[in-house]
């Protein structure tokens, strides 16, 4: 079973580092506090003839035993604050023109609604997303690795949330406004992505010798093939030529939005630059104006 799912974004690693930092600090203080509690309790079990000590915790000599740890906790907090600031700024800081985040960026409109997604790949002549002249519209997200993507996120009705687990990215979609953000998939993380074809776009997963069949007898007699994580193979350097299902990730709605919130999901497909261009050409031919 995976704890943190494979990250493919340029900034996901920083967020993971923040998790490790917080875990180290918090794990340390939790252990100390728990051990102190258990030790003091066991060492102080009532014994005949032994009185408790009258310690009021007044004066520096006594209070230093908690104030010094509190000062050390504060220093840990400061370290967490600093790393938090870097991660927050990198992922959520304002997406400004001509910055590292927007160089050569691909702009995509994301509209969430009850209960699905719509992605617009071309603003059209009016320079606004989701107006009449947006022709390249799909219910799934397809992007090239190695290129910055700036998204313009909105909602058609209620508050939704755009969550891409493998980017470590979440952003609420609020009706009435466009919220901008960015991401970039790193090709090197695509090489180490281990897939079992569980995330599929269409068709069924071919049976694999390593697959374990789990039965869900209560849900419409579904049989599911799941390859244990340890047995999955990384995509490798030729990831771009792997079948589409192997380069497909989950996008879900992560803010309760109504009855079918639990069924609100779509897919992210990652191409390399060349493959994506070919796909976009095909889209323009089929959907857009020539």
């Amino acid at each position, binding site marked *: *079973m995976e704890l943190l799912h494979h990250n493919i974004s340029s900034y996901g690693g920083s967020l993971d580092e923040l998790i490790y930092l917080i875990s180290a600090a918090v794990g340390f203080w939790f252990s100390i506090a728990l051990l102190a509690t258990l030790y003091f309790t066991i060492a102080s079990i009532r014994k005949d003839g032994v009185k408790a000590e009258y310690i009021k915790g007044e004066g520096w000599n006594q209070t230093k035993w908690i104030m010094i740890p509190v000062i050390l906790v504060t220093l840990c*907090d400061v370290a967490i604050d600093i790393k938090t600031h870097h991660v927050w700024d990198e992922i959520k800081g304002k997406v400004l023109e001509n910055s590292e985040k927007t160089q050569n960026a691909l702009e995509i409109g994301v509209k969430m609604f009850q209960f699905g997604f719509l992605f617009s790949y071309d603003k059209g002549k009016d320079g606004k997303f989701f107006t009449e002249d947006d022709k390249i519209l799909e219910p799934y997200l397809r992007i090239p690795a190695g290129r910055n993507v700036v998204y313009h996120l909105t909602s058609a009705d209620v508050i939704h949330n755009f969550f891409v687990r493998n980017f470590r990215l979440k952003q609420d979609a609020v009706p*009435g406004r466009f919220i901008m953000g960015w991401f970039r998939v790193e090709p090197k993380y695509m090489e180490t992505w281990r897939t079992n074809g569980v995330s599929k776009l269409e068709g069924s997963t071919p049976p694999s010798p390593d697959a374990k069949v789990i039965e869900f007898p209560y849900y419409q007699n579904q049989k599911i093939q799941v390859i244990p994580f340890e047995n999955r193979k990384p995509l490798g350097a030729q990831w771009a030529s792997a079948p589409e299902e192997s380069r497909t990730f989950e996008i879900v709605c992560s803010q309760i939005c109504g009855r079918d919130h639990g069924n609100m999901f779509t897919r992210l497909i990652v191409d390399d630059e060349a493959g994506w261009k070919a796909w976009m050409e095909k889209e323009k031919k089929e959907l857009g104006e020539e």
Partner: protein
Amino acid sequence: MSDHGHHVPTTFLGKYVFSKDHKVVGMQYLVTGLLMAILGGYFAYVFRMQLAWPGINIPLYGQLDQSAYNGFITMHGLTMIFWVAMPLLLAAFGNLLIPMMIGTDDMAFPTLNMMSYWVFFLSTVFLIASLFGVNAVDKAGNVISSGPYGGGWTMYPPLSAQADITGTGGYGIIENGVRQIPHLLSGGNLLITAVALEFISFSMGGINFLVTTINMRADGMGIMDLPISVWMLDLACVDFMFSVGPLIAGAVMLLFDRTLGTGFYDPNRGGDPVLFQHLFWFFGHPEVYVILLPAIGFVTDVMATFARKPVFGYKLIVYSGIIASGLSFVVWAHHQFIAGIDPRMASFFSLTTIAISIPFAVIVFAMIATLYKGSIEFTVPMLWALGWVCTFLVGGVTGIYLGSAGFDIYGHDSYFVIAHFHYTLVPSTLFAGMAAIHYWFPKFVGKMFNNTLGKLHFWLTLIFFNLTFFPIFFYGMAGQHRRIFQYTFDNHPSMVQYQPIRQFVTTMLICLIASQSLFFINIIMSVFGGEKASKNPWKANTLEWVADSPPGHGNFHTYPKVYRGPYEYSVPGRDSDYWPQNEQ
């Protein structure tokens, strides 16, 4: 002492129903809170069964579809926070303890106190009615759909402002191109009314607690001679009363959107959905400290009594409590980091949220230091108090993750949040609540609990609580998002691998719920057949132990005068290891 001039009640109605006696009012809140806990627990059982075995016919319910699932998780959260945690910790024990711990005969405003319970009772009626709210009627007036509101206990608009056939937020009902408002008797309307009534009730109670503590303390009892429980109950009242106003306003605006068709939260009419979030969480965050602070108070008092030691750093704890209460007003937007607020504002709230861990670290370290070189007796209340420390530590430290805006980008609305708040709210409500109930039951009921049952109940709860909620951190960290009715191959394939853990958690929850039956058995056995309690079975110092068990009308035969603080245990040079506040 108060000068009420009221007569001693003689009728059954006057003594036990419409009673102005703080002890009766406290018991009324306690019993209501415990009964509502059964309802809240039932909701949790039903939706956890669906998660573990998707699509089954759940025993004692039936099949749970996604709409009903949303309704159940919403009602579970609301019931547990507003109709279990607050009545048990704040209203019940505030009413029972404050007048007795300060050595007076009743609250400052006994009639207002009685009214506060009955307004609360009315809110409970509305809450239960909302389970059967009318969502849609056909042209002939027949009800085609009914059920509770299901948009999460947080009730964010626009979802909570729109009408839909399921009541839990469907596609919205549109007639002739106009989006319809919900039915007047819809679950959401009844729910908002219930919450508003509850807020009114607690505001009445809050006034009472504060005025009583400030004005009616016994002769010689300075503000720094108050037991920590009283300090924490009063700080909780201050937090509640300063923060609830904005939410009442926000809830009224939501009710107007739902009944009058206004557009406070409708962006198409110049409104802003995020406004509700601010109004909600400005209250919502202090609210969790309203639940936590009394728990800290009870655990501290229990620990001092059974360690036979003064509370370590009384003044430090009081000042840290005041600082934390104040800071609780400037952290609220950590619930909205990724809601679309300005990223610079998010940075500010991340700083304050992580900073609030500092006064709480002082308090928890001081509580642990109280145990050092004590003389500890493992009574049932002491076990629950120690259990609170160990379990709350998990909840407290996992709050650091979520307070960091960077982590929250990933952790928001995930099961990690669920695990975090269950490790803070359940210890406070269940562990500290049980510590308080077991500690003060002899005083207010006049009987002792069965010790063996009490210990068994504690150990089973501790074990099953941890086995239920600790695994949730695991798949929460893996990114499993919340408020989803099932995680199967069709909808969330990457979450299927955690199904065995989901089933384990549900099984442990059933064991946890079953273990609580020991408590109910114990109460019934002890109320009717328990050993009679003496005035001061725990040999404690505070003033409530001076009164009879149970106390009569007016509480004390002679009103006590106070000579020292509440924690003079094991004072050197004295034979006795305790020195009551009222003894010279």
